[in-house]
């Protein structure tokens, strides 16, 4: 029987189950232990696992990310929580130059089974420094895997897979959706990394998205259905490795593609998907691939700026009608 849980609870279940299963798994980060997590994802974990395995760190992202890398190279499986990926920028040296490179530099002698996780993307009027998405940054780097999924059930299964993965995995969550409620299957539930999910079937257009933009896309698809346009909606779930087979298969059916990606347009996930589709489904396209991104600007504070900046159902509907050559 599936249960209704919040996203933060499903993520907590993933970590707790893996920590019960494997002594080498531990959690470290700012406020994860005594404060019960900045967003309460790790609530109660200190009580269950103790301070050896649920470790409060000082505010020192570079340092504790590096400590995680060292521990991973020496036989442990750390979960490093960033309060937000915006702060993880301080730790990029350790993620990019070490976690991602260790296996190659050591010719396979040392691997780095580590999870870096935290929320990515905008979360209201948080202004320029607290509103960025990092999927495409991390996905650019060979050696890393990137998971970005807020489907309550799948997020659990993906995080469990990430913790068991022998490679470093960056897991992107969402501040706004930690309280979102969804169904989580009972018992052991694993979702494989690198496999997208078709959330809605349709024959007229494919819409690809991930993380909280899935909410925008689902709302748009509902509206479009009322107008008789049946959109096929794909949740990427994993950004690297990208499941381009799923996208190509869908586009071969619908002949039209809109990518909805909260990150900036330049060299982002949407650009990569557009490349894949022109390469592998060129003859199937009835319209140019179109994308809906956040604006190519920093995000200012005022409420109307936020609305103008982010993708929303109206922008998605407009893009869908564009690729379908529908007037109005």
């Amino acid at each position: 029987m599936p249960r209704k849980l919040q996203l933060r609870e499903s993520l907590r279940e993933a970590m707790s189950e893996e920590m019960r299963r494997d002594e080498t798994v531990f959690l470290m980060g700012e406020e994860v232990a005594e404060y019960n997590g900045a967003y309460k994802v790790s609530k109660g974990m200190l009580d269950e696992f103790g301070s050896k395995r649920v470790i409060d760190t000082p505010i020192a992202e570079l340092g504790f990310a590096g400590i995680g890398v060292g521990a991973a190279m020496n036989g442990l499986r750390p979960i490093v929580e960033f309060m937000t990926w915006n702060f993880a920028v301080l730790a990029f040296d350790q993620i990019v130059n070490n976690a991602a490179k260790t296996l190659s530099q050591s010719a396979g002698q040392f691997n780095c089974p580590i999870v870096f996780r935290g929320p990515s993307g905008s979360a209201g009027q948080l202004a320029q420094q607290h509103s960025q998405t990092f999927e495409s940054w991390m996905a650019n780097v060979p050696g890393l895997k990137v998971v970005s999924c807020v489907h309550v059930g799948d997020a659990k299964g993906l995080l469990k897979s990430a913790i068991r993965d022998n490679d470093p995995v960056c897991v992107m969550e969402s501040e706004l959706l930690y309280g979102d409620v969804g169904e989580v299957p009972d018992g052991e539930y694993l979702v494989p990394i690198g496999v997208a999910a078709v959330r809605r079937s349709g024959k007229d257009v494919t819409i690809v998205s991930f993380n909280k933009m899935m909410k925008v896309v689902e709302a748009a698809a509902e509206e479009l259905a009322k107008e008789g346009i049946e959109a096929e909606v794909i949740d990427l779930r994993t950004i690297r490795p990208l499941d381009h087979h799923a996208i190509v298969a869908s586009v071969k059916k619908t002949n039209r593609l809109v990518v909805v990606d909260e990150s900036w347009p330049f060299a982002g996930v949407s650009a990569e998907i557009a490349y894949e589709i022109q390469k592998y489904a060129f003859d199937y396209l009835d319209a140019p691939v179109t994308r809906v991104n956040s604006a190519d600007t920093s995000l200012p504070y005022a409420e109307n700026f936020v609305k103008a900046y982010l993708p929303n159902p109206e922008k998605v509907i407009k893009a869908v009608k564009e690729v379908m050559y529908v007037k109005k």
Partner: protein
Amino acid sequence: MTQVIRKKRGKSAAGSYDKGTWLNWYETMLLIRRFEEQTLKMYGQQKIRGFCHVYIGQEAIGAGLKTAIRPEDPLVTAYRLHGIALARGLTPRSCMAELFGKATGCVNGKGGSMHFFSKNHRFFGGNGIVGAQIPIGAGIALAEKYKGTDNLCVTMFGDGAARQGALYESFNMAMTWKLPVLFICENNQYAMGTSVERTSNVHDLYKIGAAFDMPSEPVDAMDPVAVHEALLKAAEHIRAGNGPYYLEMKTYRYKGHSVSDPAKYRTKEELNDYKSMDPVKVTEKRIVEGGIATAEEIKAIKDKIKEVVLDAVDFAEKSPYPDASELFTDNYMQEDYPYIKD
């Protein structure tokens, strides 16, 4: 500073160590010296490429590490690592072959001069980003403590890295959590071309530890005996569960920062001053004059080392390059990872 080192020098007691230990120090230092001389020669012949930083002048640190630290203690360092790798027991053959970029190198030609690794020797690299290995060393130590061993992690860095934020973050967490980590700053006095004096108001780098209440000491690192004794004392403190210890090894590199650096930022007098206390020569003199070994025994060691190093070059020369298909191995543990190839 030269003065300070000289004054301390006479203090290490030659008599308290047996012949085997003395010859171990000497042989280790001589191997490093001769290996690095060949490295420079081979670089000149373009057999070795890329960034390349030699250890000449700093050999006493390698010698002390060899006798004072257990082989099961993990070690991580920066990119001036050939000497440390040799002291750690990596073979001259596998090291030279790595410099040549050959498949028989210690990381199959994938790392080069800056990225030696050896799991068998608990040698964790090999880091080319100044100071990045400091938190990694603390993390390796965290894992040792987590697993309940009494191993410590030797975490080495240069004077340049002592100015990186990563050091301060790591010192803080390592002390707070009492991690079994031995921090070693190899202060060779120049961060590339910038002297210690020009990068901070604090010139005695061991004093940085005081901000964290970390036991910290300077060491005359031109003397293998002083290095050995300081390491033993620090290791004992750490193994007793007291947390980190920090040693500033005061040393000097005779060559430039890398092979392409003519080192014009220092005087000939300064260089000659340090060469007058050369760890290899001084140790040889102490051994012979102290009657620990005969001149003939020393000559036999020299002949052996010469042969070992030439053999390493010959081995590297004759070894094959890695197969180009190896480009797509060791990026992921996942064997069927779907690389983008078009």
